[in-house]
């Protein structure tokens, strides 16, 4: 459990780094970075599920920490309240579609 939690924490750190990078370097709202890492994590899980026969618990732990259901919905809700309603609707609707597409892409590679 300790190793699983440590890999999960590393995944959270990667998500945070992506959000900071999006805010400072690309100058976009952080939830766009959350959308990107959710898709990237789903693609990695698709890749691991399709091509790794052995146990890949740690990949799932890392990707589970990197992807976040709560941030994918709470951050757009926060943006909705602050007036960025079009962006929040776009993020809410595209996240599941993009994650499914990314998983399929990862599994087909």
């Amino acid at each position, binding site marked *: 459990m300790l190793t699983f939690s440590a890999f999960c924490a590393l995944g959270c750190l990667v998500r945070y780094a992506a959000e900071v990078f999006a805010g400072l370097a690309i100058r976009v709202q952080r939830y766009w970075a959350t959308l990107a890492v959710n898709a990237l994590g789903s693609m990695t899980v698709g890749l691991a599920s399709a091509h790794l026969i052995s146990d890949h618990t740690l990949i799932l732990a890392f990707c589970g920490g990197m992807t976040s259901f709560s941030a994918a919905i709470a951050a757009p*809700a926060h943006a909705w309240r602050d007036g960025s309603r079009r962006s929040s609707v776009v993020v809410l609707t595209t996240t599941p579609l993009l994650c499914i597409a990314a998983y399929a892409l990862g599994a087909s590679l």
Partner: protein
Amino acid sequence: MPTFKPAHSLLVRLLAVLGGGFIGGALRYVILTDLTSAAGARYGVYPVPSLADSIDLRLFVINTVGVFIATWLLLGPMGNSSPDAPGRLFWTTGVLGGLTTYSTLIGELGALWGQNRGVAVLIGALSVGAACGAGWLAYQIRQRLERGS
């Protein structure tokens, strides 16, 4: 877009994310793993589930409750603080971010897809719909509380 100057050192922010993520990951592991059986050692493999077992209620509850709490926190006083405030990073980015997961849900749906596509679509729609509903509920309660005070 509001810009915030980080008021706390990089080390404090990294520790907040790592500490929260560690706790969130441990909670998810304990909840999703059946520690009393050998299945606990095989958490990392997606078995093709039988249709009767296709709805993982534990993951469903984790994601739905996590969304409610995160939305509740972000629409409260915590949401008015800097996105780099350690408390906000610990709870929302760390604990709740580590607890809830998109990739595990997508992985389970992918395993189910080969067996019954209709059920996979239904479970996916239910999971996302329930989470959106939880976020909407937290939003409405917060709005009512703000209007009442």
